[in-house]
């Protein structure tokens, strides 16, 4: 009981090995589910945003079960910023490329002039590209929001 009270002083739920083991078993499946939702965005409910939220949630789960440092070790701040910008770049890049190739903004069929696949295929493939971009950006923004809010911007202990 004494050690329990000491733990209560430190206010750490993350010490519990039950939560740690369960979460470490679940996290890879949650990540794969997030990727699945992003990739199958045009056949099933979901898409870039929802898949990005699921991916971000997996890192939030890691941060909740262990602590902020572990989650940062698995997914560093640099990679986070890089992915956020890459996602935004893919989205605007594809959209602007459409405009440059002579179509409207986000008019994917214009990309047919670049690599001839046929306008219909390009519409499907363009949506896929844009959703990957949105998913990456949403994931990084979710994770960095959680990091910032839970630690007051200091990135030390976290919630």
């Amino acid at each position, binding site marked *: 009981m004494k050690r*329990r009270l000491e*733990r*209560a002083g430190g*206010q750490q*739920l993350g010490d*519990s090995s*039950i*939560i740690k083991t*369960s*979460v470490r*078993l*679940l996290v890879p*499946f949650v990540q794969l589910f997030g990727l699945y939702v992003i990739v199958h965005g045009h056949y099933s409910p979901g898409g870039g945003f929802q898949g990005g939220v699921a991916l971000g949630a997996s890192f939030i789960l890691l941060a909740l079960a262990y602590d902020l440092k572990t989650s940062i070790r698995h997914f560093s701040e640099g990679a986070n910023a890089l992915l956020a910008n890459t996602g935004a770049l893919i989205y605007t890049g594809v959209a602007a490329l459409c405009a440059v190739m002579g179509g409207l903004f986000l008019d994917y069929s214009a990309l047919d002039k670049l690599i001839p696949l046929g306008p219909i295929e390009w519409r499907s493939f363009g949506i896929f590209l844009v959703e990957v971009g949105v998913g990456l950006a949403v994931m990084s923004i979710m994770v960095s929001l959680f990091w910032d809010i839970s630690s007051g911007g200091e990135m030390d202990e976290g919630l």
Partner: protein
Amino acid sequence: MILNIVSIVLIALGLFFFAVGTLGILRFPDFYTRVQAAGKCDSLAAVLVLIGIAVYNLGDLSLAAVLVSIKILFIAAFVFISSPTATHAITDAALLIGVKPWTKEKNTP
């Protein structure tokens, strides 16, 4: 036909345990005893209902239906792992915050 009967039995049993769990969290005297009713009856009930739905879904035997049934079993497995973890997290938090447990001696005159 047999599949339908099996799934009806499973879903009805699950519904019964859902009802027991809900009645439990309404009737029990304190937080810790409510956790007993809520966490357990609910996870068993959810697993039973999910397996019932998966069995019913096998009615037309195609590849897609089988895959969907396996997915439903994944949800059941997820509930089986996550529900006790959540219960444990809440109970641990309650004990550390200092919610007083209800005991027999204190409440019987």
